[in-house]
């Protein structure tokens, strides 16, 4: 298990760097991160299932100005690792799947708090950089940026360790305490989650025609799915 955590930490560090500090190539998106974590902890498909739902849920919160959206990368680390471990122990039934998705909100908020902390520490780094430049050390700019990057990367690695550890613990210790029937009751909430994701996109893509095209497409695809099922 130790090498899995080591690999998760390395991958998590890269994904967290992509989230804010470097590149923004979307390597930090839940679909990517949850799939990666699923693969690391033994079941890529289970991780991807979590990623598919988590990918859209937080899109409504835009990283505009100084506002920090919930840490959906952390939610994906937790959800992906937990889903992979659950699938190989109690089985990833609908109830467990729902529980993991809902529990990931706690992780997303914890990650957001950590993000806020990093940016506050960066204030100190930026001030020290400015002071060094005032003293004539131009290279301090490069050192300051390296310090900021290192802080983002280390925090990402620590968060990945904490969240993947929490995911493994929840799947190995918490979920088995509830019987299949209890977990099954939880599944009643599952349909709300992808719809919440769709609503998230719907609300951040608002134009005059958004409502019409969204609901027409929804009805058409729903009808198509039905016809496909009935004819099969």
């Amino acid at each position, binding site marked *: 298990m130790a090498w899995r955590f080591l690999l998760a930490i390395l991958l998590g560090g890269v994904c967290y760097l992509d989230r804010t500090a*470097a590149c923004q190539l979307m390597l930090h998106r839940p*679909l990517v991160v949850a799939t990666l974590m699923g693969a690391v902890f033994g079941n890529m498909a289970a991780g991807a299932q979590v990623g598919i739902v988590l990918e859209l849920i937080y899109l*409504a919160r835009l990283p505009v100005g*100084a506002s920090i959206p919930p840490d959906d990368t952390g939610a994906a680390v937790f959800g992906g690792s937990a889903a992979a471990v659950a699938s190989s122990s109690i089985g990833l039934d609908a109830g467990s799947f729902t529980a993991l998705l809902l529990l990931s*909100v706690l992780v997303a908020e914890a990650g957001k708090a950590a993000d806020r902390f990093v940016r506050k520490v960066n204030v100190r780094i930026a001030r020290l950089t400015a002071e060094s430049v005032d003293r004539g050390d131009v290279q301090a700019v490069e050192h300051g940026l390296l310090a900021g990057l290192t802080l983002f990367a280390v925090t990402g690695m620590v968060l990945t360790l904490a969240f993947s550890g929490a995911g493994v613990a929840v799947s190995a210790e918490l979920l088995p305490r509830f019987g299949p029937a209890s977990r099954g009751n*939880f599944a009643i909430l599952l349909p709300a989650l992808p719809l919440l994701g769709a609503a998230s996109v719907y*609300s951040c893509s608002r134009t005059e025609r958004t409502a019409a*095209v*969204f609901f027409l497409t929804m009805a058409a695809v729903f009808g198509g799915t039905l016809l496909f099922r009935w004819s099969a």
Partner: protein
Amino acid sequence: MTTPALATRSRSAVWRRQFLLQGCWNYEGMQNVGFAYAILPALRDFYANRPEEALKAVKRHLEFFNTQPAMGALILGASVRLEERVAAGEADPRAIGTFKVGLMGSLGAIGDSFFWGALRPMASVAGALLALLHPLLGIAAMLLVYNGVHLTLRRRGFAAGMEGPEGVVGWLKRAALNVRTDDGKLLAAILAGAYAGVFAGRFFVQGGNTLHALASLLLAAAAVHLFAVLFRKAVSPSEILSFLLFVGVLILWR
């Protein structure tokens, strides 16, 4: 005054360093350290034998700066060109600050709307839908859709900026990002509709008769509408998820 030209190596370094614009993002100067870091190779060229002026130039770029990171490439390119003019004595150093402050807000708004409001949702839904077929297909589609546009705009924006502040205006006009934003949002809405339709079909259809199916569709559409209304009223996805988690715990308790 003759100014050393910007070496190709330095131009490439500035281009590469723009990807670390947010490397030291902080609440006070926001992207200030990242911007100064990115433009540093150009400043070293322009003020090669004038350390005092180089220092002043670096300080100029440690002032508050914040914009959408991809749109930062455009401002960075134009700032390099302006610095070249300042170093040659053709422009007032204060013009750079005025230029950056004048542009970062509006470009930030345009960029936020395009990248976070249209392109990212579009790429995300496309990825999520294709991931239903195979996870790697979904990831590849998402990364290609997003980065195809993202990296092209960064490259073209930087090149336009390097033509000088005049090039920025022309490029913004040609890029027509407002039109692309509307198109992207519409496409994202279509894909999100398909996503909602797929999942509504998966979860709600159990009976098999038409009336039940219609009721399921209406229920799903009402749920989406309710969530969207909550978002408009500034309720966050975390709050909705927390509420659902609370309901789940109550179900378990019962």
